[in-house]
């Protein structure tokens, strides 16, 4: 079995393994989950290795067996795929560590492994049928993660999340089918192979296909106004669930744009890029404004994701090398930064069982280390130069500034300015301000060694990417080179 196949079959088997281990008790399942996620992370690094070594030039392909219906089992990895899988495996490992003290059944651990499997599949599949299958399959574990292990309003949030994203992806499916049918109409060949479909002249159907794809991917990103599932799902999911959701699953939408929508319909992409830039620009400001109005810490971070993903999209739709590379890097960055923030809010919730801004206060005294890490992540999220967030945002803005629609760079800059206006007051109110009435700060102890370890790794990455992004860009940049207009 090739490495690429192993990238998605291994975690799937790992999920079964965790379930089986669950028969010997909850802690056995937990240990099993840790073991397999470590192995998986190692595997993902092994996958990433050639891309780092050759500065992203290498492409690993499993030239697949043709199956029925024009579908073939076709996997391929380039720098972007490998990096996103590494991010998945990395956050997966941290999620297991972060959930260490939860008293949960084996299903919890299995769900995370299954999620990793589906995500890896999405990032590897080069056959649109398999792409869609993996795409949808990610919903199932996340549905259970939110619905079973989430907080009070989890049931509603889980169903809403599933239905909302399904609504988008079924349109995407119809668009994919339309593309395949159109290709068949021209060539008489049924194929779902993305590479074979590239360059097809879709004619009058092209805008519709593109619209379907953009809506499907856009719900996932999410673009404003298709975003309203996100605050609910992120808020109600357990900490680790929010991390995977924000850290990796949102990236699927952007990845889909880069991998499928843009290459498939280059003409429409160019024609529509300014409108997508408008949507992205609005998203950065709108997400920030909404975040400013929140009183729930987790919800606030959820809205901040909308704003940040707006930057990514701005970069991508600029269709410039710097914008695309920056957008790709920002995908990784957002996974790390928002991952850290969600972990921290999760730790806070674990201790105080509350998430409101006014439920805490004065934590800097009670939990200085906690406060340090939170501040670090907040500044990374704000886009402080020297940390990772700035690199991505700056490159995205540079990209859009030299694109057809430079005006949205101004909008993006407004978004950058607003970022501080929602995160810092929240940070101050939780960590600096004295405790108010009904505060649960008394229950908040400082981070223990395990939690510190999780955050040290994340913060070290933030700093690393912030100061030396070039190495990372070298891995990512060849993947997007073909999209540059």
């Amino acid at each position, binding site marked *: 079995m090739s490495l690429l196949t192993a990238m998605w079959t291994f975690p799937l088997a790992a999920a079964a393994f965790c379930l089986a281990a669950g028969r010997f008790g909850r802690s056995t399942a937990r240990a099993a989950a840790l073991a397999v996620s470590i192995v998986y992370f190692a595997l993902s690094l092994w996958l990433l290795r050639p891309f780092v070594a050759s500065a992203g030039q290498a492409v690993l392909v499993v030239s697949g067996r043709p199956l029925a219906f024009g579908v073939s089992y076709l996997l391929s990895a380039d720098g972007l795929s490998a990096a996103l899988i590494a991010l998945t495996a990395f956050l997966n490992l941290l999620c297991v560590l972060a959930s260490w003290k939860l008293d949960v059944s084996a299903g919890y651990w299995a769900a995370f492994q299954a999620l990793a499997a589906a995500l890896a599949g999405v990032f590897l599949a080069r056959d649109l049928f398999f792409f869609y299958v993996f795409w949808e399959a990610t919903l199932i574990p996340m549905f259970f993660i939110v619905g079973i292990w989430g907080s009070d309003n989890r049931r509603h949030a889980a169903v809403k999340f599933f239905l909302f994203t399904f609504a988008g992806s079924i349109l995407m499916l119809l668009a994919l089918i339309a593309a395949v049918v159109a290709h068949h109409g021209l060539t008489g060949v049924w194929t779902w192979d993305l590479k074979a479909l590239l360059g097809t002249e879709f004619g009058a159907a092209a805008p519709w296909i593109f619209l379907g794809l953009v809506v499907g991917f856009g719900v996932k990103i999410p673009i404003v106004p298709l975003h309203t599932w996100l605050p609910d799902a992120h808020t109600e999911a357990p900490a680790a669930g929010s991390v995977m959701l924000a850290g990796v699953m949102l990236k699927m939408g952007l990845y889909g744009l880069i991998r499928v929508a843009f290459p498939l319909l280059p003409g429409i992409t160019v024609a529509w890029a300014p409108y997508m830039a408008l949507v992205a620009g609005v998203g950065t400001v709108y997400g920030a404004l909404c975040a400013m*109005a929140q009183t729930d810490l987790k919800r606030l971070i959820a809205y901040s994701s909308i704003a940040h993903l707006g930057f990514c999209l701005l970069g991508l739709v600029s269709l410039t090398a710097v914008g695309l590379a920056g957008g790709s890097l920002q995908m990784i960055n957002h996974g790390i930064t928002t991952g850290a923030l969600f972990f921290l809010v999760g730790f806070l919730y674990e201790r105080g069982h509350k998430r409101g801004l006014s439920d805490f206060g004065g934590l800097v005294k009670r939990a200085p280390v906690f406060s340090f890490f939170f501040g670090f992540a907040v500044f990374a999220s704000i886009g402080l130069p020297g940390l990772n967030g700035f690199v991505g945002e700056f490159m995205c803005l540079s990209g859009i500034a030299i694109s057809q629609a430079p005006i949205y760079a101004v909008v993006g800059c407004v978004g950058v300015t607003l970022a501080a206006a929602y995160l810092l007051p929240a940070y101050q109110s939780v960590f600096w301000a004295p405790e108010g009435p009904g505060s649960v700060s008394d229950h908040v102890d400082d981070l223990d060694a395990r939690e510190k370890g999780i955050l040290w790794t994340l913060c070290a990455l933030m700093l690393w990417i912030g100061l030396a992004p070039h190495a990372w860009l070298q891995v990512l940049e060849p993947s997007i080179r073909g999209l540059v207009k």
Partner: protein
Amino acid sequence: MTAAQIPMTAWLLFIAPVTAILIGFFVLRPLKPEWTHWPILISCAIVTLCAFSLTARVYSGRGSFDVNFWRWAAAGDWAIDFGLRIDGPGTAVLSMVALVGSLIHVYAAGYMEGDPGFSRFFLVFHLFFLAMIGLLTANNYVQLYLFWEMVGVASYLLIGFWLHKESARKAALKAFLTNRVGDFGFLLALLLILVNFHVAHFHLLYVVIGSQLAHGQIPSSLPLIGLLLIWAACAKSAQFPLYFWLPDAMEGPTPTSALMHAATMVTAGVFLLIRSWPLIAAVPYLPHLIAGIGAFTAVFAALLAATKRDLKRILAYSTVSHLGLMMLALGMGDITLAIFHLIVHGFFKAALFLCAGNIGHAVHKPTVDVDEVGGWAKALPATYVVFWICALSLAGIWPMAGFYSKDAIIDFAREGGGWIAWAAPLISFGSAFYIFRMLLLTFHGDRPEQNRLQKHPHEAGPMMVVPIAFLAVGAALVGWIAPALSRLVATGWIGLPVGLAGMTGVLNLPGNVSLPALSVRDMFSLGGGMAALGAASAYYLTMIDAGFDWRWRKAKPGTDAAFDADLGWKTLVAAFASGVAAFARVTGRVFDKGVWDGLIESGAEAFYDVSDGLATFAQGRLNDALWWMAAGALLILGMAIR
């Protein structure tokens, strides 16, 4: 010139602080927090020595360079390299920052002793120091922006250092957000520069723009870039209309106010404009705009400083005013003069702040009102003397350093003509007035209206006296470096060895930038006269008509309130901020949650309503079912034989 040829002293500027911070954070903070300052003080010493060594090399004409050594990010044909630029303006300011900064570090070790946040203070303080060094040695806009933001964060953390105080938290937020608004301009300018010129390096930009100017064209984007950079500088250097964060920033510990919000950080805006001078000078009227902003701010802030009572607040407005003077000098095209005043101001203002710190320390309060003190000359003799020297320097009285820098600006402005010529003497008069008012109210006399603190003030220990004594010496004497400074600044700009992408060799700055030599000035001038007049007025209103300050406040509460609100500007800004917040609330809660999400959720609900509606058709009656079947069959029949 290549990266390998960069002298060790330049590297040490970074290595020393980074090492000190790492040791402090990872080793001392957990184990021995009260020792955190030791590695940091050592680092200060190293940095100061290196800074002076570099300055000497640049002065000698051999040491300036501009070299890239680190590819930060690149994609396609877009690339940003980081490097070091050691040149005249940079090293001139750097030496001052290093020296004044180090002295304040020493002072802080005394001032902050026993504070529970001692270790945190020093780490952030030194982080700021590092950022400032980076800012002054950056060779391109992106790098400058990086350190520019870093000083902003350090400033945020230090203004809010006493977290338990609501005013401190608010001030920190205000400072950061205001600077963020300024950074909006910086970021946009940066993007515009990259879009239009494809480089962010100062020197390459100078060359590109210079060659375009040589052909008689002004790049069309240049005015906008210049405006945005000025906007950014207005936020960082606290110029109207974005000055209002600086007085509030005095909520931080006094060493912070001295180092960051008086001597160094706030001058970053001026420094940015110095770095951008070849861009700005190329556009007609932009220098005039800068001069206008500077002159207006200087007069405006001097007026406000005269009405404030909190010691640190008076000094803060004075800082705003003096930054306005630097802008004025710059706007008139004299870079050297701007740098000269920047340096002089760094000395006397840092010393004045630390004096205010000593006064507060004497009564264990972070800030003190002029209401609460009076006649303390005897209790705090050292502070008193230092204050006198620095006050004279600030007021621009011969032979203090302030005389040379400030008077030169005033005279220069007089020569320029226009309304600025009329504003200049006012500044002189105003600054002498407020500083002597402060001096006299604090150290002299005994006024019945004063709400004197019932404590016995005492002089601080040597850690807090020696540094200010050094600073006072500087405030008195640095005026005489003027000729040397002229040469230093000019040396660094012309004949610069560069090692940049696509360009190596020795370069001269393109023309159009005048670097007039500073001359030793006469002791009698209009500025000096006005300053003497201001000091005399202050003497009259505080010593002879002793209760004046209290009387007019009581008599005209409306005017007092207007001054308190900075003549309405603060009210306007607050209204803007709350407007944005209200808009956000409407967007986030009413629209997003209520209207839009509500609409979507009710879309889902609609399915359930339709479900109920359809269910009413299914009553379970057999005849109905058969009727529907007959109708359905007919329908299908109808479709088939259209």
